[in-house]
């Protein structure tokens, strides 16, 4: 059965970056902030306010959930988050949508590029 994910798409830039940061491994909040900055080469930076506001929304929607801490002696204030199967499905659908956008953009930009020559 194919699930309709269209109500969740398109993802906002913050949501997309947070989901991408969690796609590889479970991370704590500060780790997510650093990973987002790394993935975007420092062009997109999330503040803690924006991050946790989005995390709360995604947890309510069932895309992200809290994960157990990997180390026993970790700082108790650090909480880890991970992607749920539903979150992964939404991320995959949005990446497919973006691929379609890029394909169409390339198609439309090619003749304009030719005319310029």
């Amino acid at each position, binding site marked *: *059965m194919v*699930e309709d994910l269209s109500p969740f798409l398109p993802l906002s830039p913050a949501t997309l970056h947070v989901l991408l940061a969690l796609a590889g491994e479970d991370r*704590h*909040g*500060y780790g997510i*902030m650093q990973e987002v900055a790394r993935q975007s080469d420092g062009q997109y*930076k999330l*503040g*803690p*306010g*924006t991050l*946790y*506001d989005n*995390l*709360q*929304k995604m947890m*309510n*929607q*069932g895309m992200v959930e809290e994960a157990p801490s990997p180390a026993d002696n970790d*700082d108790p*204030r*650090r*909480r880890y988050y991970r992607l*749920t*199967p*539903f979150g992964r*499905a939404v991320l995959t659908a949005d990446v497919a949508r973006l691929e379609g956008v890029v394909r169409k953009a390339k198609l439309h930009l090619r003749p304009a590029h030719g005319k310029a020559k």
Partner: protein
Amino acid sequence: MTRTLYASLLRLHPQAFRRQFAPEMLWIFDEAHVSEGAWILLFDLLASLCRQWLLRTGFWKVTAAIIGAALQMLPALNVFARSRSLSIRPMAETPVEAQGFAVIVMCMISLVILLVVSTVLWATRVSRLKALANRRSRCRLNSAA
């Protein structure tokens, strides 16, 4: 000083958000205020505070309902004031009683609108949670398959 300001702004967030995230957000402030800039983090938290109260809670809907009720009462108050100037006093004998009556009516209308909005919000939330539970179980079945 900026840390105290940050902690104070965190305390102004809705209780559910504060309980869930405040300690970790304060920890991130301690870690990142030098590299990111304390004032940038404060501005980000201020934006989050506005978003939390205006978008994530139903607070704005309740406020809009109360303002709407008050605005609806304005023409009625106007009619009442005109009837007083024409010496027609349909419901109250003195201006003080008339004002009291108008305030009571306004409060009752606001209360009714508040109850209706709360019920609608509650019903929407319940249906949304049910839809979410269905979606999760479907997703779990899909991933299991």
